[in-house]
């Protein structure tokens, strides 16, 4: 369900169909994904863990990892805070001196196999898969090596083969997916001598955990870590002390990682759909402004020209009229003169 929803979201983003269906983040908001039904998980109870490192040895063996820096029966390494790396998929750290608890407590670290994994959501080539059995698996045959999964993982689990020049892979716990399919237990669970690790259906494990808290309320903190953290994980934890004191983060929230980016992704088709309209509109406005300015300019030129023409014409006609008048006056003057002269000559001839 989760996968198909994320796929759905992606397809809509890719095809720009978001406009037609609205934001998938909101569409899914009234549904709560509780993980694949019947999916498997592991419950770690730190009140039962004795810090023997057998789980580390079992993991090393079934995953055919290189031999450890210090042999697995050397328990002095427990006091140093260690993390997983490309050669170690699980580690156990020891925490001492708790009020009211005589013995030290231990914390086991490995991939938590989120119900809606951040790594799978962040991977741009879909190298991670949340299988319906529960494990989150990784496919090195498509991995580009961008390490965005490591940025995304809230538990800082994926590790990277930095010393591989050309074929680096992400390395992490697989919850022994191949063994689970064969009906076997994960390596760490199988070897654990104290039942600090219980393997089973996640739903059943939550019931078992609740039962233990109910039965021994003084012994356990009333919280199952992993039931809701980051939308829930396939690995679950019971503890005798607040998880914070085992360096497990209590501020992760319950929002599954894919939802953190769903809003931003759902904006993509909106921008792709509306930006061209807006920009073309702005272009049209500036173009029209330019056109109007040009027309106005032409009109201004035309009207000035007209005015100038009219003025010139009126000047000309005035000048013409004046000239005509002058001409007429001159003619009449000449005529008069001629007439007078004629008269004179007549008078002369007559006398």
């Amino acid at each position, binding site marked *: 369900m989760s996968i198909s929803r994320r796929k759905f979201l992606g397809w809509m983003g890719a095809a720009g169909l978001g406009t037609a269906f609205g934001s998938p983040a909101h569409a899914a908001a009234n549904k709560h994904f509780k993980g694949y039904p019947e999916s498997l998980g592991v419950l770690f109870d730190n009140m039962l863990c004795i810090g023997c490192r057998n789980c580390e040895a079992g993991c090393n063996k079934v995953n055919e990892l290189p031999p450890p820096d210090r042999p697995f029966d050397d328990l002095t390494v427990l006091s140093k805070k260690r993390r997983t790396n490309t050669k170690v998929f699980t580690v156990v750290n020891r925490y001492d001196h708790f009020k009211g608890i005589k013995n030290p407590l231990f914390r086991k670290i490995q991939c938590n196999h989120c119900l809606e994994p951040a790594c799978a959501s962040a991977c741009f080539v879909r190298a991670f898969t949340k299988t319906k059995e529960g494990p989150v698996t990784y496919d090195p045959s498509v991995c580009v090596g961008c390490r965005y999964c490591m940025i995304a993982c809230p538990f800082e689990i994926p590790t990277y083969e930095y*010393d*591989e020049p050309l074929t680096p892979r992400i390395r992490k716990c697989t919850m022994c997916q191949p063994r689970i399919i064969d009906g076997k237990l994960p390596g760490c669970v199988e070897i654990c001598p104290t039942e600090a690790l219980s393997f089973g259906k996640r739903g059943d494990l939550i019931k078992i955990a609740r039962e233990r808290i109910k039965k021994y309320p003084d012994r356990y903190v009333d919280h199952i870590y992993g039931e809701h953290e980051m939308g829930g994980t396939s690995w679950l934890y019971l503890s005798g002390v607040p998880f914070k004191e085992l360096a497990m983060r209590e501020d992760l929230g319950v929002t599954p990682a894919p939802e953190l*980016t769903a809003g931003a992704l759902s904006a993509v088709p909106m921008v792709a759909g509306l*930006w061209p309209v807006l*920009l*073309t509109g702005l272009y049209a406005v500036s173009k029209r402004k330019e056109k109007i300015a040009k027309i106005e300019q032409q009109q201004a030129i035309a009207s000035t020209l007209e005015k100038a023409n009219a003025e010139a014409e009126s000047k000309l006609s005035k000048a013409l009229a004046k000239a005509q008048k002058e001409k007429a006056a001159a003619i009449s003057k000449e005529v008069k003169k001629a007439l007078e002269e004629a008269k004179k000559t007549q008078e002369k001839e007559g006398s």
Partner: protein
Amino acid sequence: MSEKAAAASKSFFTPFNVVAGIIVIIGLILTALRFTGGLAAVTNLSDYNPWGIWIGFDLLVGVALAAGGFVTSAAVYLFGMKRYHSAVRPAILTGFLGYALVVLALNYDVGRPWRLPYPFVIQQGTTSVLFEVAACVALYLAVLFIEFSPAALEWLGLRKARRIVVKLTLLLTIFGVVLSTLHQSSLGALFLIAPSKLHPLWYSPYIPIYFFITSIIAGLSMVIFESTLSYRYLSHKMDETHLKEKNDVTLGFGKAASYVLAGYFAIKVIGISAGNHWHLLGTSYGLWFLVELFGFVALPCFLYAVGVRDKNLKLIRWTAVLALLGIILNRFNVCLIAFNWHLPSSERYFPHWMEIGISVFIVTIGVIFYKFIVTRMPILYKHPEYSDSH
């Protein structure tokens, strides 16, 4: 290389050539180390710190500083500000080289660079913000290449091809703005998935918008900065129009940058308010946040405004440098300094000198290509045979 051959007849050992040559040689050695020894041989990256300065600087800063292309072409071709036309070609060229170098840098950072097309051709991880970034950057690089091509086609004398490309200007500009909006903001959205790792003063649901708005500031400032450098070293390549419009561009872009910085300051404060993170301002990270906000957002906003009011070009040019440093600081804060703030200092990242070396090498390649192209193609001047264009 042909540039060097051409210059050989004169004096080959100019200060520029010597410095660039040394950097290129060191860069090639570091490249060999990277691809024989892996990332561990040349970087300080770790399982806690998977991204270093090749992402923080080469990708995040590189893409932001290359925003001048979309900002300038939008101003001129879409918003009709034709008086800045002479700024378009240098900005597009810087953008194109910027994106090309971002992709080059990614080839060093990712584990198997030849698989970079896999997200498109093998399996599409469309739920990933990184998928969107990759798709948009790839498409935009192609757009920038086409937008840049008229200069090269004029240089090569291919009139027919040039005419076709020039006809596409409007379409390409719109496409470029859409793609830039998407991937500039998505670079910020990359960090939305890690609220538990990024300090709350920098983590915000608005981070995609912050990244987009700062890219506009970066684009405007970069055009001013780059035009200053070009004038200083390449003014003999500029034509009259370019020289005449140069100061207008500085004033106009400075004014725009001042406005955008003011808006950015406002939405940053709104972000603090929306997250109710006021109490964090008193912590050491809070003081650092205030240094960024006042020293590298409010201050350049004010100085740009004063510079524009007084027509003080020198002040505007120096403010552009300050604004660009602010962008670099912001990207470093988000990706490196405020990221993994919860870890003890022993687990924090500081770049190896060889990482810095590769980044310097890549920037140097950019400068060499810019110089090569600008001294040959009509970037800072109009080709006399194509003066009819636009």
